[in-house]
């Protein structure tokens, strides 16, 4: 990981700004997509859990 960052250190001052901005946009798109997906998955898990909780009868009733 660090060696790629060393590369980036040498890269940043000379790189045209459009490359840096496109890299930033790519991170935003990928990171934002992952965030939205995780929100959906968390909601699904909560729904499954609440469904399971309501379907499982209390221990006393068995």
């Amino acid at each position: 990981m660090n060696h790629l960052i060393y590369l980036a250190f040498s890269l940043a001052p000379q790189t045209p700004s459009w490359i840096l901005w496109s890299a930033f946009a790519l991170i935003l798109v990928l990171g934002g997509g992952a965030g939205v997906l995780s929100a959906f998955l968390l909601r699904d898990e909560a729904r499954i859990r609440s469904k399971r909780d309501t379907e499982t009868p209390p221990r006393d009733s068995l």
Partner: protein
Amino acid sequence: MTRKAALLTEALSHLLLSFVCGLFLFGSFAQSMGNDAVLPGTGGVFFWILTCGLRPFFGLILDEYPRLHAQTAGCVLVGIACLLPVAWGWGALLTAAVGYALFLTGAGGESLAFARGFFSRSALVFAGGLLGMSIGTLAPLWGLPRVIPGLLAFLPGGAVFFFAETRKYPRRIRSFRHSVSRNLPKGAVLGLNLVPLLAISFTAALIVPSDFDGYFRIFPALFSTAGVVAGGYVADRFGPRKAAVIGFSVALPLLTVFTHIPWLCCLGFGALFVPLSVVLGTSTISLSTHPHFAFGLCSVALLVGQLPALFGLHITATVRILAAVFLTVALAVSAFLYSDHCKLFARSFLHRENGGRR
């Protein structure tokens, strides 16, 4: 083959494939860019962005279709990328990034799914990447022919195909559920758990040990790898909270005050990576049916933490203060979030599942 041996195969395959990727980036890809000063670095950064950023999406696919041979396919793609003609530089880079992301998502998710409450098992799989990539970046010093990394990439592909990849996934990953001490909402656990990860990647990317050139460049990665492995065993033995708190407490002074002493800085890297296996294991609590996605999300958090370094923030007094603040916050979150009960749970789990054998 037992799951433990399969995890070991995945760990060695991860080490070898990371080595091949380092060789490819600093060897054949850099050659294909000619004498340009900027393009090899740009390629390296885009490789890293793609390989981390694509993992959650691949993870979602693998969670839905666990029968896909993602790790083998990843190795084959990296091998093909290394064997492509020089003129295909950017195409080869894209192929290698997709292949490496596929392999890591498969290996990472699988190691979390089959860790059975032991942080050390998943830590073993994650640890190899840092060291492998670092050794691979020394490629220009060796002058290896282009065909060598290509052929080397197929070795881990064959190994994981025959010995590691599995088709029988547990429906829910519940083995790490006692690593959190509070009864918090799952979203809060997921969010808080990413704070230590952001602190680790922010600090690791910005703090660079001075005076380390040539083969000495391996040492930060060597210490980091040792830190990840040791962290797994410490978390199993003494509990995840102690592992994370000790790791951040040791890393805080070493990486903010003693950065001018390279060996102390390396020790700091080792301590910084101690909590990594705890964070990765805990991520499966909130996403218990999606271990591959959980691993991918952690990778994206690592990438986001590296953003300041990627965009040219250099180490200065202000950065040291920022790193100190970030590490202190991570220390507080770790003390708040993690528990020390995991060890007991892992033992009882093993006793039930494996007849008491580890």
